[in-house]
């Protein structure tokens, strides 16, 4: 059947190329991609119409069945029927394949369909004989078209955008959601901190390694024992204000609470401090061990802790971002207070004294410098200090204080301690438990020894950072701050310092020369090493040249000296004279200076 059609097509040798294309289902499919199936159908219709003698607008359509124009209606119909069947089958198949291409010819199809229908309607009255065929044609057409239509509609639907739902954003709800988010985040952070702290608390940290491993953060909020879990916030606010304000209005028992808390808390705090050294930790461990030993000594031990902790806390607070640490420290304080109510009385008594003792201890180790450092750090607390300031000197009077600078430091540290233990000082002074203090002196000595060290290190750190930039600046505005600075920097040095900068070969030149010689990429660090090597080299050769000139009895380095140096270096040999090297490596201008050139007129340049 196909062959018949094909033959027909070939026989026809239709002038239009479209005819030639149609000869097989495959070709038909191809053509279908270019031309709508409908057009083929219409072509057939057209052919019929032509046969009928009526011209239709379909004629311009490319139709595959133009070859049938000349065929007899009956033959054509029969053939067409057969071919139609074949058409349909392949139609359905390629249609699926060429769904995408239908887009191009969609319009055409539509038009062709409508026009085809029109033509078909026209044909109907004309060709009664073909009515059935038309109906079948239409049916088949519809089938094919329908199948074609399906993808179109599907495509259309896909292209169609879903109706946009423009909801007016509820600003209030949005902001509420944002706030909730923030709260959630905060809560999560806090919970995490609590959890971590609780977890660490449960696992008693005994070894330094454990401590170090556990505290990897820079500003680790103090991690407490198991007590730190609950409802800290309300207590936090209370304790925070109490700790910072250091007002006498605080009840004594609250102070006691803080003391007790401090002992435990500060030990942990110290561990978390980034400045804490291992010695400190071991001492704290030692102290912890002491606390665990006997309940009788617990009060004292706590006081020891409190002593050490107070200055430490103060220093830590001053040095670190006070907010979070204090916040949590206070929380811890409040936590511990619950547990140590019984011991508060004892601790209170000795707290102030112990603090005073410890103050002495701490400066005794560090010396005046540390005392000054202590001054710097607790300045904030000093300012905050109020009435209790008077108590601390009184408490010191009870003790046997050491050197005078120690007293200053003690006072300051006492004031610092005041921040946490205020009302207790009054009671503490009355009862001078020298025995306890003596005992604690020994115990706290080692511990307090460490505090100034780390404080020393901590306090000194910012200083070096500040000092270097000063000499670099050369502007006169340096005058006013200069008198304030400890090191006297005269005005002229500002400008003179720029000139007295150490002479060095330009690093860019070194880079250029080295990269030219090495011919491969070089890292920046390697360049630094090359610079250092060149400095060393110049140092070496200057001493060598001095030796050579001295050996020759001269005070000036001459060319011969330098040549000798190069010879000894192995650069100038019998095979490699100096001039060759000069010519190779130095630019022309310098070569002229170094190598005498004989020019006409019996002249030698440079003249020897």
């Amino acid at each position, binding site marked *: 059947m196909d062959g018949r059609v094909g033959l027909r097509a070939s026989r026809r040798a239709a002038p239009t190329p479209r005819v030639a294309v149609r000869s097989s289902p495959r070709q038909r499919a191809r053509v279908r991609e270019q031309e709508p199936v409908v057009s083929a159908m219409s072509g057939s219709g057209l052919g019929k119409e032509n046969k009928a003698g009526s011209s239709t607008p379909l004629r311009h359509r490319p139709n595959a069945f133009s070859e049938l124009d000349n065929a007899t209606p009956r033959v054509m119909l029969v053939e067409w029927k057969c071919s139609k069947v074949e058409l349909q089958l392949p139609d359905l198949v390629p249609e699926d394949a060429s769904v995408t291409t239908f887009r191009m010819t969609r319009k055409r199809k539509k038009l062709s369909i409508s026009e085809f229908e029109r033509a078909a309607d026209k044909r109907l009255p004309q060709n009664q004989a073909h009515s059935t065929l038309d109906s079948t044609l239409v049916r088949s057409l519809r089938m094919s078209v329908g199948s074609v239509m399906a993808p179109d509609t599907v495509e259309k639907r896909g292209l169609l955008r879903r109706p946009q739902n423009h909801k007016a954003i509820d600003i209030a709800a949005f902001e509420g959601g944002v706030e909730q988010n923030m709260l959630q985040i905060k809560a999560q952070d806090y919970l995490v901190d609590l959890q971590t702290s609780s977890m660490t608390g449960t696992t008693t940290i005994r070894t330094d390694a454990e401590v170090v491993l556990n505290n990897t953060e820079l500003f680790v909020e103090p991690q407490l024992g198991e007590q730190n879990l609950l409802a800290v916030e309300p207590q936090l606010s209370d304790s925070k204000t109490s700790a910072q304000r250091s007002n006498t209005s605080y009840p004594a028992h609250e102070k006691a609470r803080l003391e007790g808390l401090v002992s435990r808390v500060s030990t942990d705090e110290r561990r978390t401090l980034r400045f804490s050294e291992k010695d400190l930790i071991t001492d704290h461990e030692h102290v912890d061990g002491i606390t665990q030993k006997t309940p009788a000594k617990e009060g004292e031990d706590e006081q020891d802790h409190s002593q050490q902790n107070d200055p430490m806390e103060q220093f830590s607070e001053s040095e670190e971002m006070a907010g979070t640490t204090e916040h949590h420290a206070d929380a811890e304080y409040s936590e511990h207070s619950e547990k140590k109510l019984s011991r508060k009385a004892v601790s209170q008594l000795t707290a102030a004294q112990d603090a005073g003792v410890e103050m002495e201890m701490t400066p005794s180790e560090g010396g005046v410098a540390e005392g000054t450092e202590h001054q710097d750090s607790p300045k904030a607390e000093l300012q905050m200090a109020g009435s209790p300031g008077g108590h601390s000197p009184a408490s010191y009077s009870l003790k046997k204080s050491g050197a005078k600078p120690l007293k200053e430091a003690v006072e300051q540290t006492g004031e610092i301690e005041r921040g946490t233990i205020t009302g207790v000082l009054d009671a503490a002074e009355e009862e001078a438990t020298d025995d306890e203090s003596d005992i604690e002196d020994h115990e706290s000595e080692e511990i307090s020894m460490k505090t100034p060290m780390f404080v020393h290190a901590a306090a000194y750190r910012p200083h070096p950072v500040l000092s270097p930039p000063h000499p670099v600046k050369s502007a006169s505005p340096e005058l006013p701050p200069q008198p304030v600075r400890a090191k006297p920097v005269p005005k002229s040095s500002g400008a003179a310092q720029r000139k007295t900068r150490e002479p060095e*070969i330009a690093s860019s030149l070194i880079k250029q020369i080295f990269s030219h010689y090495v011919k491969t990429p070089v890292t920046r660090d390697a360049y630094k*090493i090359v610079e250092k090597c060149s400095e060393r080299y110049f*140092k070496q050769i200057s001493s060598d040249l001095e030796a050579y000139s001295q050996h020759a009895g001269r005070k000036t380095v001459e060319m011969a000296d330098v040549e000798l140096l190069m010879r000894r*270096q192995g*650069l100038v040999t019998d095979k490699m004279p100096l001039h060759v090297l000069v010519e190779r490596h130095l630019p022309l201008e310098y070569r002229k200076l170094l190598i005498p050139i004989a020019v006409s007129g019996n002249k030698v340049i440079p003249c020897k």
Partner: protein
Amino acid sequence: MRRTVPRGTLRKIIKKHKPHLRLAANTDLLVHLSFLLFLHRLAEEARTNAFENKSKIIKPEHTIAAAKVILKKSRG
């Protein structure tokens, strides 16, 4: 694009190390020449070290090893 030899800087450097020493007329040019050759040897040695490590980039460790050798060689 070579630049001019930093003659003044060279003189200052030698003066810094040996203030009592004087330099003749064009001696600093020869000193610069020796410095260039020193860098040349250093570069070669560093490149050899890098190749031995199968690295196409000169790394500091290559340079350090090379410097040790060449500085010793450059002693007068």
